[in-house]
């Protein structure tokens, strides 16, 4: 078993500015752990990318699965506090992370076209009101508020996935039922020929959370 990253360096005051790891985060960790052998022995990643790293918990955990220094782990977040804490979480757990303060993957494409072997995204997925208010949202609200169907940020990310994934690349995405996961899977299949499965799902209160896994249909083995 791979221990959950140590987060003792993060104070309750920090959590006023950064998304605190919750059930969704832990489901993500469990999904990666479930796939640990596959990631280590079949994907053998060189470059990994996490969008919206928050505390950096997920990428640190991925680093633990793969072993520090065996792959480049890049994290982005739109929240500068998150980018700063991400580095510290890696450091405190002896995992070197690269943290970039940016919107989704701005600044990394087209340079990293078809280069990402493992892509992770635990997005703002909560169903909220219209996206008109997006710019007025506080930084901590942006961590979870997903607009209509909770899909506002997710739908901006989906068209970028195909460009990012390497031939053998896999994409892990957390969704809840309200995000219409079947519709997301259809979009990815029809528009980008990406296959998918529900790797893990769990009930968190009344929220049905799941981790979807996507890969290229040219990659016969999953």
């Amino acid at each position: 078993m791979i221990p959950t990253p140590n987060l003792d360096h993060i104070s309750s005051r920090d959590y006023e500015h950064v998304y605190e790891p919750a059930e969704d985060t832990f489901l993500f960790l469990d999904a990666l752990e479930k796939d640990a052998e596959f990631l280590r022995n079949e994907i053998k990643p060189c470059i990994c990318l996490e969008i919206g790293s928050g505390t950096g918990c997920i990428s640190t955990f991925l680093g633990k699965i793969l072993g520090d220094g065996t792959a480049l782990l890049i994290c982005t977040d739109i929240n500068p506090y998150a980018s700063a804490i991400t580095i510290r979480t890696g450091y405190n757990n002896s995992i070197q992370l690269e943290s970039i303060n940016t919107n989704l993957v701005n600044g990394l494409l087209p340079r990293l076209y078809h280069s990402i072997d493992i892509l992770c995204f635990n997005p703002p997925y909560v169903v909220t009101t219209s996206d008109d208010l997006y710019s007025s949202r506080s930084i901590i609200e942006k961590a979870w508020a997903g607009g209509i169907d909770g899909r506002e940020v997710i739908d901006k990310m989906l068209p970028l996935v195909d460009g990012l994934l390497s031939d053998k690349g896999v994409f892990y995405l957390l969704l809840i039922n309200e995000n219409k996961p079947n519709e997301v899977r259809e979009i990815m299949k029809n528009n980008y020929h990406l296959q998918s499965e529900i790797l893990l799902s769990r009930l968190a209160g009344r929220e049905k959370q799941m981790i979807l896994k996507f890969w290229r249909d040219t990659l016969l083995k999953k």
Partner: protein
Amino acid sequence: MRLVAHNMLQCHVKGCNSNNFPLQLSNVEIEIQETDFNPMFLRNILPKLEWNALVKTALQINITTLPNVLPDTSTDDLDDEFLKMLHRVLLETHIQQGKMICPNCNHVYAIKDGIPNMLLNENET
């Protein structure tokens, strides 16, 4: 931010699509942080680097150890000495503070406490 990450960043200001890489380092503070040598990772990442950009960037911070032409990566006999030198430049050289300037549109991206800020104002995207 290590040089390996700098090698992956380009300007994304609206309309700035050519000659926007590599971002030029300016007024930087460098810190060397030692880390374990992993020749396999270096061999894997080598084909994914933009070598000319790396050489150019290294020169901006007075690192002159990189050869102008990348040794043939298809053969497996990259010697340890070369890989150790590369390890130092790519993975142990951290840019802690400073600026990155787009060679095309001159947009300035700040690096603070090792984190590049690639965010743009709405009118720039």
